[in-house]
């Protein structure tokens, strides 16, 4: 993981995503299970994150992820083209989630210290 100026804990691959970092994380997490096309991604993300990505936002993030080599299109005869995670994408997601977990653990720890176990 690269720690950028200003303390941004996102890995380098996520640094250019700006407001697409959220959708990108969701898409990569969904593709970690296996290749999926647009609608399958929408439904899967809705199921595990309770977030429904609108089609425009979904494809903006897909386009960015593809141009950075984090995902790739799978050859298919179907008009619904599936995408899959690349090795670089898997590594970027791993680093990103590890960083998120570190923050989540720290936050929970501090909450427990000041506010009780809850």
């Amino acid at each position, binding site marked *: 993981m690269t720690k950028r100026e200003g303390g941004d804990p996102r890995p380098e691959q996520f640094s250019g995503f700006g407001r697409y970092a959220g959708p990108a994380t969701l898409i990569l997490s969904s593709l970690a299970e296996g290749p999926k096309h*647009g609608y399958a991604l929408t439904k899967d993300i809705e199921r595990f994150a309770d977030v429904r990505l609108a089609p425009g936002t979904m494809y*903006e993030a897909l386009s960015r992820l593809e141009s950075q080599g984090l995902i790739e299109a799978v050859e298919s005869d179907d008009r619904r083209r599936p995408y899959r995670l690349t090795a670089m994408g898997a590594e970027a997601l791993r680093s990103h989630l590890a960083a998120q977990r570190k923050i989540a653990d720290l936050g929970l720890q501090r909450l427990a210290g000041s506010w009780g176990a809850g």
Partner: protein
Amino acid sequence: MREGTRHRAARLLLWYPREWRARYGEEFIELLVAELDERPRSLRRSVDLARSGLTARVAAAGLGGQPLDTEGSGRRSLATLAAALSIFSVVAVALWAQLTIGWQWAPPATRATSLAMVLMSLAILVVGAICLLAIAPVAWLAVRSINARWRHLLGPIGLVLGGLAVLVVGTHHFANGWPGTRGHPWADQGMVPGGVAAYAWASTLFVTSYWLHPTALAQFPGGEVAWMLVSPVAVAALIVGATRIVRRVDLSPRVVRFERRLGLLAAVTTTIFLTGAALWVVDGGPGPRNLFHIGSIDVVELAALAFLVLVTGRAAGRVTAGKPPVAPA
């Protein structure tokens, strides 16, 4: 039902630029069809599609964001810069011509409007010089490479020459009807030569609010109305042709750097023009016989100019050498 949904999805796809549709169109329609089947109406989805489609168009024009063709993005910026500066020139000349007519009859009553006119006149002069300097190397390279790339350059060159011919002939003819004619008992000397002002007026006669007043427009001589219909087509041909040449001709990195510098200078100069125009609008243009009167079209033009200044600056800052983004047809 399914066919109707597919048509609706295809219509929604039109928010996106052509190259985006070529790359993602088919699969995106599939996603939209599934979405529309599940939720036929969704304001959030409509807004999201409009926003992301326009964002993709901004990126495709080389104005920022994530373009699909990163290598050709710098050249797209140059083409957008050329288009923005051309449209700016048309609107600016239309606005300036209106004021020069006023000054032919009498000078403005306030220093603010006089200063505005001086700023606008100087800026227009510099923008004109910038345009000529920017056109020269591109035109030279287009002519030089016409043998090798005639299939790609012939159409745009035809558009430019055709548009230019119509504009020159028509402007020359209609400049005779210029309302700033000297010799009137209360005519002033004006601030620019009458011929220049008359040509500026005749070439931009179509930029007028008379389009919203058809009864008044019907009182105009038929030839003049025909010219008001033909001249914007000629201007559009000129701009489209020039933009296509910029996208298709092979420009060396040195020429691109030169164009970029001119673009940055144009961004500053257009800002000066905008400042002058805003000064006039804020001042309210007081003067004898309502000669510098502000109309709602002037406010609309000012807003359009502000937008074009933004586009010019943004595009100029992103111009880089790169392969021509348009694949040979």
